């Protein structure tokens, strides 16, 4: 019985050593009394471990599982972020009523106080809906495509500010959602200046030629450079005040945000860009005339 227990322990010790890279013979040599009994057992165990370690998974299955888990995590976190959002019942009616109400209030100037007070609000704050409703209304006003493009750039800047506020208070999941909304605003802006931004960040935007005036492009670039730089500085300033474990999340979001701005800027810049710039796809001329 005692021998049996001893052999159980020795066998287990050798299995751990073999897993760590030791050879069967070497481990069995540590226990000369049990060597003859150990070797055949270790051989079969080592073979089984080798076989198990060769089994690998399909990367696409792993990717699919991760995206399912991520959406489940975000969905689970979403109710907190939407605490003061539109009522769940009859959202369309509620939305129309609130838009009408806020429009009327804005028109009469009585909502000025609430609107001003909401300007620093972030998702979850009681007045945040005033802020987002104001933005939605500002987009409904008839205006040129260029104005709309600027509006969306402005909204991207606001989302960036909210994002850094949330990260400063450790609300990273909500900040990540805002980063997505920020990129959406930049993409919307690109649409109004006839650029098609891909969802794949590795791909550059589709850049139809000659549809955006030079001055318009420069105006937008200046604004994007300024807003992107401002956000970068703000986010670079954050990690110093944070625990080490959170810093990489700030860095990741900062890089993603920067990438959104840089891709847009690069696509807006003149086609004679120096070779170190990222590539972009250019639509072939419709008729070459050759």
């Amino acid at each position, binding site marked *: 019985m005692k021998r049996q227990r001893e052999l159980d322990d020795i066998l287990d010790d050798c299995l751990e050593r073999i897993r760590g890279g030791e050879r069967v013979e070497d481990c069995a040599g540590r226990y000369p009394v049990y060597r003859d009994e150990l070797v055949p057992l270790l051989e079969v165990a080592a073979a089984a471990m080798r076989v198990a370690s060769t089994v690998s998974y399909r990367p696409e299955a792993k990717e699919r599982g991760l995206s399912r888990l991520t959406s489940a995590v975000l969905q*689970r976190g979403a109710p907190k972020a939407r605490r003061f959002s539109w009522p769940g019942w009859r959202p369309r009616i509620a939305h129309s009523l609130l838009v009408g109400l806020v429009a009327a209030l804005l028109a009469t100037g009585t909502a000025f106080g609430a609107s001003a007070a909401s300007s620093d609000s972030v998702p979850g704050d009681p007045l945040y809906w005033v802020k987002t409703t104001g933005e939605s209304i500002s987009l409904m006003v008839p205006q040129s495509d260029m104005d709309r493009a600027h509006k969306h750039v402005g909204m991207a800047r606001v989302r960036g500010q909210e994002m850094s506020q949330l990260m400063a208070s450790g609300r990273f999941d909500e900040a990540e959602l805002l980063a997505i909304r920020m990129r959406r605003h930049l993409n919307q802006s690109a649409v109004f200046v006839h650029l098609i931004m891909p969802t794949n960040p590795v791909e550059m935007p589709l850049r139809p030629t000659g549809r955006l005036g030079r001055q318009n492009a420069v105006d937008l670039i200046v604004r994007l450079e300024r807003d992107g730089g401002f956000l970068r500085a703000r986010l670079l300033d954050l990690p110093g005040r944070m625990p080490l474990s959170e810093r990489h*999340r700030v860095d990741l979001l900062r890089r993603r945000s920067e990438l959104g701005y840089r891709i847009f800027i690069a696509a807006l810049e003149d086609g004679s860009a120096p070779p170190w710039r990222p590539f972009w796809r250019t639509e072939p001329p419709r008729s070459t005339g050759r």
Partner: protein
Amino acid sequence: MPGGTDAAAQDEVDGLVRRAQEGQAAAFAGLYELFYGKMFRYTLFKTGDTAAAEDLTEEVFLRMLESISSFKPRGYPFSSWLFRIVHNLVVDHYRKRDRQKTIPLDSAAGVIESSPQDIDAQLDLKLSIGQVYKAAGELTKLQREVITLRFAGGLSVLETARAMGKNENAVKALQHAAIRKLRSLLVPRSEEMRGPSSTAKGSLV
């Protein structure tokens, strides 16, 4: 991470679990990254079916998300807790399928990483996986569970013991008996397939 989890790796897991309990999305992704391979291998060796293993592995992380707030470390390794979840999922899977016949790991061979020029090696390996899987099917339930958790799941004896609700000595004894039985089942077969040129010792693979 030989022999389950060393101290540094355990600290990493504990940190991720704590952050996941606070609801941080990146922590869930970190745990997923750490445990996906182990979970997949475990479910594959339990079911013998790649598609089922992929589904079950996906499911275990969703279950983890649902109940991670109830996990209390207090000396109980997170890996053991996670393997308990996956074990229950596998049991449910079999209950649903009413223990229908499984695919004898031929499909699993398709996911083994190997270059096309290693066709001979791949055939050998395929045979070995089939052999081990089939032989493991002849072990007792407990022996099989120990072998799967230890070899496919990569758990230490302590983690295996916690996952199975047994003490370490019992796990070691089960492991010993399982390996002895695997030896008796596998070696004659492999010698037979290797033909008369194989060595008398019958070393495997």
